[in-house]
């Protein structure tokens, strides 16, 4: 099921939490919702899941507007809210049964679904405990299990991996990736490696506005511009090397970074790569090329550039 968000706006008092944003999410896509604290991620998610009303604009799920009283959109959405609220005094199985019943899972199928979820989320060892007795990581799994209990076509996960240990994080990310093949997944996070590991597309939001939208690669390309290479060339005079590098026609600028270690940084002309030319130059002059590393703009840098100020 696709989600279309059109001119969505929501303000709390004079402050605009979400300001006229537009985006689509398609089936089989994992969308990473990225932004600093208070950027409007959770507010947007709350509107998609129908917890808070839409002030202006529209959200359409499977072509139907949420404001249409006939659309029972909540049945198609599985939602893991921020901070993962749960009924701590309920046993896990009772809780999952309650959620399944509310989401309209057929009575005869409830038991099977619960078993499946317990297996999928790795809750088997703890299944007879009360939720309040579980550690944070297991509670997070219960939160995921309740979101998926009715096999929804859309999953909205607000910071799904907080509180998990590194092994669990990897498992949950894999789970999200697998789910994302058939379902529509929106997940919010401020852990950047998580986005790269799980998401097909990134949406960066800052102060209620979308500041970037694209795959991790396209964002990186946009932010990076020209190719930057880190080089170490030995067996030659530093000044000569620098001069020769600057003389190459694909090189825009070559700098000496570290004299003793013969480290250089080379920026190429737009849309061109200097790797081959540098290699050929070294072969020709009998210099030894001991290091050639392309410097990638990290997602962190993109994020900082777009959201700081």
């Amino acid at each position, binding site marked *: 099921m696709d989600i279309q968000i059109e001119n969505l706006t929501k303000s709390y008092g004079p402050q605009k939490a979400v300001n006229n944003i537009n985006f689509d999410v398609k089936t089989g896509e994992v969308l990473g919702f990225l932004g600093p604290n208070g950027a409007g991620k959770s507010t947007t998610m709350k509107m998609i899941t*129908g*917890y808070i009303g839409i002030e202006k604009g529209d959200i359409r799920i499977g072509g139907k507007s949420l404001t249409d009283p006939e659309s029972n959109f909540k049945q198609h959405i599985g939602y893991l809210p921020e901070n993962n*609220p749960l009924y701590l*005094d309920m046993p896990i199985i009772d809780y999952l049964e309650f959620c399944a019943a509310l989401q309209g899972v057929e009575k005869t199928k409830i038991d099977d679904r619960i078993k499946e979820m317990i297996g999928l989320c790795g809750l088997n060892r703890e299944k007879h405990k009360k939720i309040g007795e579980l550690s944070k990581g297991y509670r997070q799994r219960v939160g995921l299990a309740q979101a998926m209990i009715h096999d929804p076509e859309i999953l909205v996960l607000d910071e799904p991996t907080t509180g998990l240990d590194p092994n669990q994080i990897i498992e949950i990310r894999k789970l999200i990736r697998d789910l994302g093949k058939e379902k529509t997944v929106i997940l919010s996070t401020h852990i950047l490696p998580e986005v790269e590991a799980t998401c097909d597309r990134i949406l960066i939001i800052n102060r209620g506005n979308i500041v970037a939208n694209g795959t991790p690669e396209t964002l990186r390309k946009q932010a990076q511009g020209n190719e930057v290479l880190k080089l170490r060339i030995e067996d030659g005079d530093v000044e000569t090397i620098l001069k020769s590098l600057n003389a190459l026609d694909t090189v825009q600028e070559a700098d000496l970074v570290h004299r003793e270690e013969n480290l250089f940084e080379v920026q190429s002309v737009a849309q061109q790569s200097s790797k081959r030319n540098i290699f050929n130059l070294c072969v020709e002059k009998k210099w030894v090329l001991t290091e050639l590393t392309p410097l990638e703009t990290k997602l962190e840098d993109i994020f900082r550039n777009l959201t700081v100020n």
Partner: protein
Amino acid sequence: MHTIWTIAKRELATFFDSLIAYIILALFLGFSGFFTWLYGNDIFLVGQANLRVFFNIASWSLFFFIPAITMKMLAEERKTGTLELLLTKSVSDREVILGKFLGSILLICIALTATLPYVITVANIGNLDNGGTICGYLGLLLLSIAYTAIGIFASSITTNQIVAFMTALLIGLFFQIIFGVLAQNFTGSLGQFFDTLDLQSHFESISRGVLDSKDLVYFLSITVLGLYLGEWSLSKRHIS
């Protein structure tokens, strides 16, 4: 309807899991039993084979205990954030309110059923007025749904259970005592107005065995108004 029942069942299960139900049942039975059988204007002092004494005491116990039952219903869910989880399932605000309402009413019904031995005892002592007894229980039930609706509304406006309890008690106090006192102190149409609002007089007329549609309408209007306000207070999240 199915959703309302699911929510009500969960509420009831939570009551019994967390001991609240047992404490409330024990206190309700202890309190009403003590004043019915052992102390003050008890059944032996009155010397009549009816349960008028019990109905009077029970109405006061319910007045105190219902806010204790309803106080956590929405306040706690709001505080822990589970309200968000609940309302993003495929349920409407109204179903949540009605489910919680039904859950507490069921607990109260269990408490009232547990007083049936009183009826059997009195029936063995003398000639019990069956119609009057049934009306008395009906009166208690009507009073309970009104106070439960008030309690749920009070719980919906705050995240603090104590505030919810106090608010419910305060609103209840008006119906239980204050309107009655005002009715005695004013004459004419104003006095009549307060008399209409006084819950005790409506309750007494039912528990005396007089079934008047006026009283039914009175209790049902408080209930509907309380539940409606509760729903309205939940829906306020959409506009803030």
